[in-house]
């Protein structure tokens, strides 16, 4: 059966005045699958996410969702459809509840108590945390709150940028399980930047290895067991050490 694309990239280039960060990427993220993106720092992974979420626009090439160029989408709708959890887990001043409610509040909706409790427990936190000040949270707790607020938008595509790097082992597993469940229950396409090869192999169906703003190798996750590209081979060996 032919796999459907959630996001298609056609020769996508992104450059600033000083640097070329993405050098003509062509590829697709399969609908309903979990794709891991791995690669060294500075490979353009986060920039690629920002392009897909519409925080940046390509300098050249096209990004398509359901066959339509995202430049034709209303940016607000695009960003609700393509949710992103950023690595830095920025918290706004105020309570955890204020932060969790943010995505609904931006859409002019209210977060009900039972919904707040459900989502906060879903990401592995206790409901009591809702009334705490967001500045008092640990790095891991902040990351979980930022996942919760993105999930409240019910995105059809979820971009996760190193979201478990500040979590302990148990929390990491909780989040991995949560993402597997969201993927299987709601059919949400998940694209996950991770530095952890073990995590990539455990959660992802497919993988993109990015290097120097290009895709060095892409395919089913088991390509990491026998990469063809020498640079990828070297990278995988280094990461597995």
């Amino acid at each position: 059966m032919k796999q459907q694309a959630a996001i298609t990239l056609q020769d996508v280039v992104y450059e600033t005045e000083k640097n070329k960060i993405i050098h003509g990427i062509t590829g697709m993220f399969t609908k309903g699958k979990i794709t891991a993106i791995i690669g060294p720092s500075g490979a353009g992974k986060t920039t690629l996410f920002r392009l897909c979420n519409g925080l940046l626009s390509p300098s050249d090439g096209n990004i398509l969702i359901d066959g339509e160029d995202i430049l034709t989408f209303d940016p607000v709708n695009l960003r609700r459809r393509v949710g992103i959890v950023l690595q830095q887990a920025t918290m706004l001043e105020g309570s955890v509840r204020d932060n969790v409610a943010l995505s609904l509040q931006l859409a002019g909706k209210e977060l009900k108590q039972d919904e707040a409790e459900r989502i906060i427990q879903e990401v592995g936190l206790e409901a009591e945390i809702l009334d705490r000040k967001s500045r008092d949270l640990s790095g891991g707790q902040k990351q979980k709150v930022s996942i919760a607020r993105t999930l409240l938008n019910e995105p059809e595509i979820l971009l996760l940028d190193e979201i478990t790097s500040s979590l302990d082992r148990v929390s990491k597993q909780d989040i991995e399980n949560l993402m597997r469940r969201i993927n299987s229950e709601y059919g949400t396409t998940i694209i996950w930047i991770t530095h952890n090869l073990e995590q990539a192999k455990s959660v992802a169906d497919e993988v993109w290895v990015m290097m120097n703003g290009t895709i060095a190798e892409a395919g089913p996750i088991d390509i990491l067991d026998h990469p063809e590209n020498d640079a990828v081979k070297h990278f995988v060996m280094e990461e597995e050490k």
Partner: protein
Amino acid sequence: MSTLALLLTLIFVLIPLILSKTLQLGLEKDTLIATVRSIIQLLAVGYVLQFIFDSGNILYIFLMVALMIGAAVQNARKKGASIRGITWKLVLTFIVIEVLTQGILLGLQITPPTAQYIIPLSGMVIGNSMVLGILFLNRFTSEVASRREETELILSLGGTPKQAIQRSLLASIKASTIPTIESQKTIGLVQLPGMMSGQIIAGADPLQAVMFQLLILFLLLTTAIVTSIMLGFLSYPTKFNERMQVID
């Protein structure tokens, strides 16, 4: 005041010059420039005002106010260099402030429609609006930079540019208007305001002077808040492009 008395006031310039020289503060040049400029500028304004008051021609009032606005824009625009079209945003803000305040003063016959009232009051309003504008632009530029991650977070969750920048905007409006409000709380207790002092020294009834000073204070409250809000709402869209992305 006699010319001799005025000349004797230069002693107050000599004191800082001597102190600066003795303590090697290096302020002599700036002090001299400031003194010469203030003498030339104020004398020139004095003669210009005399001419306008004598002529009674309304066109000169407009010209004088336009000059004030031009000078205020020239001064404030440097602080907003990072904001596209800041010159016209400042021009519009100062015109609105001037029309609003003079409209109320003249429309409700609070002050008579003569150059003696319109020009000094306009000077105070536009001058204050300029200082407020500079304070606002300074704060807004730094708030936008320091809250960049927060702004992008809100955009990434499907917020509009207005929602994304609201916190920076409100913080800047608040920070720039607080000094005006705070200074009014202690006015009369710590120092007598310049205009009121001037009137009393010139022989006016102290209660009349107080009433005029109150008029100025209330005017400046409106000036402060309207300047910050107008500049804020005119400026924030320039921080985003049509795809609702933050412009660097």
